[in-house]
């Protein structure tokens, strides 16, 4: 640790390349807390968007016409509008219309900016997940569902125990793409001052005047994060692989 710090300090003194995050404890802490926030945002939005996707796909295949239309409208609207405007609409538009609560003698909004970012990003990615899951469910043959029905499964039980496990395996590559996209979209939370990686790094470069170096750190950070997610998803894909399908 000490060696790394000294090396970057020396690099700065000899070449002028100021990677302040790697030798300055204050900048390092800021960077790490930003990274933690990005990870927190990614994990919560990924999980929530999967739930939204699964629930939406269930309703979309259901018999209720109202629910079907509602889910379709949700998907179509969220797919065809910019996520940043959605975020602003939620945070500024709905956030100000929502009632605020009393907390410690201060009036604070019901949901803060981090929670709004989670809500908005989950809905955005969830809309894509609905379509992906629906396509996966369409790949499950009718006869399999009929077999489940004849064994006495209710619709919801058959969905959870039989259709969804098969559908997830089929649609994993598409899901993989969408989750990577979601990880990249978490940077938008910067716009409503959620202190995630981009926000932290912007603060560092405005104070330490090292835009180029921090840009490199930023690109590398997201490259590594996306790499880890892709690696995890590939491992999951292999583990869930159906024998006899694909290679």
């Amino acid at each position, binding site marked *: 640790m000490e060696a790394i710090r000294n090396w970057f300090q020396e690099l700065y003194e000899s070449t002028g390349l100021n990677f302040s995050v790697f030798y300055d404890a204050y900048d390092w802490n800021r960077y790490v807390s930003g990274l933690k926030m990005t990870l927190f945002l990614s994990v919560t939005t990924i999980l929530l968007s999967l739930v939204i996707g699964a629930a939406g796909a269930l309703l979309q295949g259901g018999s209720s016409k109202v629910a079907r239309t509602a889910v379709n409208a949700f998907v*179509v609207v969220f797919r065809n509008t*910019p996520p940043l405007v959605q975020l602003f609409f939620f945070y500024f538009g709905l956030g100000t219309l929502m009632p605020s609560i009393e907390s410690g003698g201060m009036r604070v909004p019901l949901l803060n900016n981090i929670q709004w970012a989670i809500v908005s990003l989950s809905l955005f990615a969830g809309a894509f997940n609905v379509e992906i899951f*629906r396509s996966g469910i369409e790949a499950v043959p009718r006869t399999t569902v009929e077999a489940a029905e004849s064994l006495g499964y209710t619709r919801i039980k058959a969905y959870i125990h039989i259709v969804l496990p098969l559908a997830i395996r089929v649609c994993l590559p598409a899901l993989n793409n969408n989750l990577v996209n979601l990880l990249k979209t978490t940077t938008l939370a910067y716009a409503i001052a959620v202190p995630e990686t981009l926000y932290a790094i912007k603060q560092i470069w405005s104070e330490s005047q090292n835009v180029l170096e921090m840009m490199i750190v930023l690109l590398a950070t997201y490259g590594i994060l996306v790499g880890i997610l892709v690696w995890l998803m590939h491992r999951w894909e292999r583990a869930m692989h*159906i024998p006899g399908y694909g290679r």
Partner: protein
Amino acid sequence: MSTRPHIPDRLATLHPYRVTPTRMAFQINPLSAAILCFGSVMVASSAWSAGGPTVPSPLEVIVKWAPLLLAGFAFNIAISLLAMLLGTITGLWLGLALLSEIRIVAGVSWLVTQVFRNAPWLVLLFFVMFLVPFQVTIFKTTIPLPDWQKATIGFALPVMANVAEVVRGAVRSIPSTQWEAAESLSFTPRQTMWLIILPQCIKRMLPPWMNIYSLVAMSTVLASIVGVSEMLTLTAQVHAAEGGRPELFAPLYGFALLCFFLYCYPINLWTAHLERRFHVR
């Protein structure tokens, strides 16, 4: 009579997977649905405000400022078209470089593609905004680079990488017999690529290319974060000009959502239509 057991003609096997875009139920026309949503936002915010007669209602505010906001939206579209043009031209070359026989060229272009594909759009935008100078001097002629042009370059970078992948995928999907047939007719490799392979790819490339365009069109609002005065910036300014009343946020941003929806949804429908027609993927 044979005593063969009855074998079902279709075994329960998984159907091929293809993502088909959701289409709204036919009874509800998407246009009217969007306007309905927008209308309810208006009514809700008007009811919430319930101001005196001196305060203009949200609808009046929007009607008053619509020309300015729509001009901002047109600017967004212009940026997206320029970025798409730039990204497509460079992406085509990058895609061809990905397929190059020379290993160094293929390796370097692979690296470039991966970097620009995996970085968030906003990060790339910051990258260009902060690291490209505000003016370039070539042979004593100074070319100024205003913010919006830098933003266009920032959007063109991810487009380039995505188009390169599309080109590579399309060229790979052409049967190798086409290459062999061309070779037997003594076409050079370059002629084969430009006269035989790429023309066949256009059909396959069109739907994903249009998908990329709709992504770019939606991403142009990111330029407001780095200070280009496009629609979202103007929306915030209009809000401030109307006295910063909190109930105006929802209708104003709702109006921006509506504009983008009305622009992107037809593109999406058309893409799905082309995909079905060409039977690709």
